[in-house]
């Protein structure tokens, strides 16, 4: 792996993790829709896009997406997707320490199994 690939992988993982954490802050501040029907969902979306965290999340997620596109043009998918599966672990650490979510042993075990599973599926 070249230093450029490692750098872009770091951008991909950090961009998606921090983007999704910002999105979680935004959605928690927005509050859930009154009902899962079209009108309450539209009202919810209207409130969500007025939240500043939403506009922090979108550029970070876009940065992560474009890093993925560039990485896929440099390296085979069988390398990029397994390496980016690390974002499940980084994301869970972010959820525990930044979002203060309760991540118990079962959730950690599940995340690690999912991460290993994604690596095997992509390489298989």
């Amino acid at each position, binding site marked *: 792996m070249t230093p450029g690939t490692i750098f872009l992988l770091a951008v991909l993982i950090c961009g998606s993790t921090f983007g999704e954490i910002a999105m979680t802050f935004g959605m928690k501040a927005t509050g859930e829709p009154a009902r899962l029907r079209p009108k309450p969902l539209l009202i*919810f979306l209207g409130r969500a896009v007025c939240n500043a965290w939403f506009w922090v999340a979108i550029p970070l997620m876009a940065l992560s997406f474009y890093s993925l596109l560039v990485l896929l043009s440099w390296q085979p998918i069988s390398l990029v997707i397994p390496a980016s599966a690390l974002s499940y672990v980084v994301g869970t650490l972010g959820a525990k320490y930044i979002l203060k979510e309760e991540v118990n042993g079962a959730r950690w075990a599940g995340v690690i199994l999912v991460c290993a*599973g994604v690596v*095997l*599926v*992509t*390489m298989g």
Partner: protein
Amino acid sequence: MASQTRLRIKTLVMVLAMVVCANVGDPMLKRGMTTIGAVEVSASGLAHAFRMTVTNATIWVGIIFLIGFMVSYMTALSWADYSYVMPAGAFGYAVLTLLAVVFLHETVSPKRWMGVLLICVGVLLVGQTKPSTTTSPAAQKVAA
């Protein structure tokens, strides 16, 4: 107890919507982009690609499904934990493999089957934890 069950069911519905939308949207986008061909990185090449993209129905269907994914994801995050929704979304890898076997009669390697099994067990493990372990600022406001 009833509220926990309700929370679990609505989170499951949103995660399923995320999986369906992502697994339909991504291949549609790929199919649409393949019909356009390789994009030339120049002002005229990008302008041509943009015109071809916005007039391609398959790409629009793909975009609509990906918007559906984003809306389901945002909705799920409004009540459920990020560390609950994120790994559950990986269930899509397992669904894609099963669809490839059932509908496309593809041969799947043992390594890939093992990966599908690990994802399913992992999602089940995460799924049996509480979907929400924090109180959102919006819910605190309502309680106050």
